[in-house]
């Protein structure tokens, strides 16, 4: 059974390339109307044209050039969306940057802070902006893109790692706050993708990102990496009613058997599986480590 998003209205950030574009494509295919946003208006127009061919009547694709870290720009986006569609069912916070690469004492601090502003504050501004509408509708789906540093330390890419761990904690905290309004909030770990960000790592070189990370990037570039469609399929699932009441989770597009999760809602709800937690000694059989 393919998952449907008929009649749903979705906002997707960072929609003009990479995973954001693939999510947009799958959302349209599943029947949603979408508002694509990104900073670059030209790329957005190209993406819109690409997705609009053969679009059934009743479905629409809007583009709104947006800087997610600017609250006025975000407010304008929401205003445009509501004028056009009158509702917002789904928000996909996909926009993100790697930020500066290199050891903390060498990176440009303004760029470091900028990565936090876009990846963290940008996503949170978007959530704040859609919440009044979603609360009033008493339904909504917020999907947050996580990434490498959310689940592990990421030397030489510290701004990215920090912003992604922070936004995952934000997402599961928000999930608790909006549970009573029928709004589900989840984060996606899309896997190692061959996108523009991988190219940035390779361009930065081993001196900046460290030999280990650089070698892994080269290997991934050659092997093709995880397909964009895993992450995009998971996004469609989380945007749909098929995933209702799955909330507060960090879900791997590559490693998790999420297709079967709807059969285990109660177990998922009462377990801390698929969340960011502190691993205790007993979780790893280190019995001397805990009190």
């Amino acid at each position, binding site marked *: 059974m393919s998952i449907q998003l008929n009649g749903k209205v979705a906002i997707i950030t960072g929609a003009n390339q990479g995973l954001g574009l693939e999510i947009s494509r799958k959302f349209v295919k599943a029947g949603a109307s979408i508002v694509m946003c990104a900073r670059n208006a030209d790329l957005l127009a190209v993406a819109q044209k690409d997705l609009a061919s053969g679009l059934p009547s009743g479905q629409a694709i809007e583009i709104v050039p947006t800087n997610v870290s600017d609250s006025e720009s975000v407010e304008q986006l929401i205003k445009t969306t509501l004028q056009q569609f009158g509702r917002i069912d789904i928000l996909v916070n996909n926009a993100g940057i790697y930020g500066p690469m290199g050891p903390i004492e060498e990176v440009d601090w303004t760029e470091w802070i900028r990565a936090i502003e876009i990846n963290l504050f940008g996503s949170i501004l978007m959530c704040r902006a859609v919440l009044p509408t979603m609360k009033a509708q008493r339904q909504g789906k917020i999907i947050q893109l996580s990434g490498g540093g959310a689940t592990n330390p990421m030397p030489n890419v510290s701004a990215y*790692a920090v912003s992604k761990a922070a936004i995952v*904690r934000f997402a599961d905290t928000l999930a608790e706050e909006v549970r009573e309004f029928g709004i589900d909030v989840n984060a996606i770990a899309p896997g190692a993708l061959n996108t523009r960000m991988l190219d940035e790592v390779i361009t930065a070189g081993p001196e900046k990102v460290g030999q280990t990370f650089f070698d892994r990037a080269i290997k991934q570039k050659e092997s093709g990496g995880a397909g964009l469609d895993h992450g995009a399929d998971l996004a469609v699932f989380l945007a749909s009613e098929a995933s209702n009441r799955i909330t507060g989770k960090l879900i791997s597009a590559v490693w998790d058997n999420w297709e079967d999760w709807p059969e285990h809602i109660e177990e998922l709800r009462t377990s801390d599986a698929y969340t960011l937690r502190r*691993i205790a000694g007993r979780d790893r059989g*280190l019995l001397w480590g805990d009190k």
Partner: protein
Amino acid sequence: MAEKRYCLITGASRGLGQVFAKCFWDLGWSLILVARGQQALNDVVMTLQQRADQRVHIIVADLADPTKIERIAKTAISLFPRLDALINNAGIQGPVGPLWENDWDEWQDTIQVNLLAPAGLCRLIAPWMIETGGGSIISLSGGGATGPRANFSAYATAKAGLVRFSETLAVELKPHNVRVNCIAPGAMGTAMLAEVVTKGEAAAGNKEYEIAVRILREGVASMQSVAELCYFLATNASNNITGKLISAVWDNWEHWPEHIDELQNSDAYTLRRIVGRDRGLLWGDK
């Protein structure tokens, strides 16, 4: 005579920071104490018994102001020959209540004070520690670092970010003999906790409110035991322990030095994603 030791403590004018100051001073360390209030810092200095071979300095600075970070680092570098320990203790609770009722400026200030300020300080202090042969960086984590915390989203977000920052920095600085760890202190009867009661049940949520009231009434995990963990992490006693988030209440850290290899090769005591098989949910993973 023992070698001289130097440390810098932020948020040193009250609560845990004040306890750390007293503890390190009594063990012979020279101190730089940072906080917003000059009078409160002076009061802390007054409680320290004068000793000829130890020094204490104060720096009055509000970590909500990003321009102050550089001044703190420069002043520290001018005052001491090196820094054995940087203790990022300062923190604010930030707005209490659901996200949509939080003031956005307050929300951002919380990230500044609890995450960007300590990260910025680490960035400026790390090269100094590297040059002078190493050191130990200790950051205070808190409720929300290890799990969601409804009605305290700014605080939880900042603390999770700070833990991941510390883990990442630990890897970067390992070759330079600089260790980086976080402490989860447990529920303390501090000003921050009293604030939860003041803000009230409606804003904090009834679970948080009840816990706060109970802790303030019945007393709590002792600040002294947190100071002992902090001192352990600041000294050679904890050599090779780095990149960990350590609970003052739940972890048997006193015995960790006997298990260094296992600790180094395990993701125990770090922030990671729990997978299905960690919890016996065999249907959940691929």
